[in-house]
């Protein structure tokens, strides 16, 4: 694997995670718990669509085979997707959506903070822009963690169940394979071991303030680095890609 291949792979990981979690959030549009929150969640989804577009566009340029962001988003199959497993998990109830978002936002917050000083100028520029957005997302989801965790008995129970269920998907965020190792060495990507420490510290703090117990699940579900997903992704892609694929070569 050369540097270009590693970079392409890495950009897919970033871009696909944004694409898929943005898609999941967009499913809430018109169905949120209150009008104000409907708007808030769509704002976050919109940031992700923008971020995806930039990342996949650059991925296509790095790959150099003439694929643009839409071809990458709409013409790849399940096994070619590199999004983290947590991003494709279904919305569930609002506690589940908020928990998923908070765990991922916290990860993204520290990851993109690191990426801001990437030696790859395009990645650094995308990260600088996105980091501001993520800072707001994290503020929003953190506030909701408090409200649902430390709200009513019902909300507490729902939130505790949500974090317990999602916990098994968090470990793979910090896995380092050959791609990461090479990019860390080149100063393009930050070391995930360091990010793991920051992530754990922040998550623990917020859980404590939200009166939530740290999950005790030891099982770790992994596989996104090799495109081994949960069964949910296939359905998501079938829905997302069908119009695009039903009309090969058409413009929209």
């Amino acid at each position, binding site marked *: 694997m050369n540097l270009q291949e590693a970079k392409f792979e890495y950009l897919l990981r970033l871009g696909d995670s944004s694409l898929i979690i943005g898609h999941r959030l967009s499913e809430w549009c018109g169905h949120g*718990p209150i009008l104000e929150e409907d708007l808030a969640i769509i704002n976050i989804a919109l940031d992700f669509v923008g971020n995806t577009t930039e990342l996949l566009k650059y991925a296509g340029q790095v790959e150099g085979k003439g694929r643009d962001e839409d071809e990458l988003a709409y013409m790849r199959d399940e096994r070619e997707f590199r999004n983290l497993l947590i991003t494709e998990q279904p919305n569930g109830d609002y506690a589940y959506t908020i928990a998923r978002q908070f765990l991922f936002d916290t990860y993204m917050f520290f990851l993109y903070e690191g990426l801001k000083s990437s030696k790859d100028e395009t990645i650094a520029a995308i990260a600088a822009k996105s980091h501001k957005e993520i800072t707001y997302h994290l503020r929003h989801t953190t506030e909701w963690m408090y409200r649902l965790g430390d709200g009513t008995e019902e909300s507490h129970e729902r939130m505790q169940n949500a974090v317990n269920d999602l916990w098994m998907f968090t470990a793979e965020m910090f896995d380092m394979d050959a791609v990461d190792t090479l990019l860390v060495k080149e100063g393009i990507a930050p070391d995930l071991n360091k990010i793991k420490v920051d992530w754990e510290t922040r998550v623990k703090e917020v859980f404590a303030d939200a009166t939530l117990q740290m999950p005790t699940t030891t099982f770790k579900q992994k596989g996104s680095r090799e495109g081994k997903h949960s069964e949910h992704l296939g359905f998501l892609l079938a829905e997302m890609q069908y119009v695009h694929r039903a009309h090969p070569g058409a413009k929209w």
Partner: protein
Amino acid sequence: MDEQKQIDAFEAKIAAGVKIEPKDWMPEAYRKQLVRMMSQHAHSEIVGMLPEGNWITRAPNLRRKAILLAKVQDEGGHGLYLYSAAETLGVDRTELLEQLHTGKAKYSSIFNYPTLTWADIGAIGWLVDGAAIMNQTALARGSYGPYSRAMVRICKEESFHNRQGYEIMMQLAQGTPEQKAMAQDALDRWWWPAVMMLGPSDDQSPNSEQLMRWKVKMESNDAIRERFIDRTVPQAEFIGLKVPDKDMKFDEKTGHYTHGKINWDEFFDVIKGNGPCNAKRLKDRVDADKKGKWVREAAVAYATKRAKEKEVA
């Protein structure tokens, strides 16, 4: 002051173009009509999120996905502005939503039609938003301050909605034969509902005279409809699509198009609840409200706890 004097003063103010503000004296009929209009309008915005929201997860590329998300989000925002405007007259949003959920309140008939293909998203932006803008620019000149201000903001934000819809239709009309057929089919299905959504003909629309004098209604339904048709028919021709009205023709003498017979039975039927999607739309709103109940309650419980802590400290 006796009632007649108050009414005279009120009407003189409106005639002079002065806006009526929430705390000003107003006839009960005026207040009632405004609450009804603003809440119906608000309901239409949030129910209107559903048919288009239906296609967000299937938008054919990333650019379209972002545009559609932003547009549907705007509809939610507009609903929010309008509920706020209604609330200035002393009603509560909880109460207004309750009326929607129990089927007591009405919303625009147009949102009870299904969105069957991607082209429907184009047709809605172009035709439905096009028709709505005609109505809303008129309402922005209305006499009630909060409603008029909400309308000004909404019109400003909506100008892109209409354009993005036309752009979708144009792209499809210039695309593959399948895409063009899809665009024509969407126009065929949305044309009449869009023409009807501007409301019944003037001879069937009650109370119009007083509402016009009070500047609650600014123009007759037929006048707005005529302007909508005059502007839209050439837009269809420009991209090679045909409006599904074989009697539609341009009248050189009046400078306006004359249209075929409108099926008002269908319109009143849909208003009554017998449209293809009435049940589905209402169920979606009720479900969202039910699923959100524990979330709203949790936020209040949390706020109450924090406020109590503050008191103690």
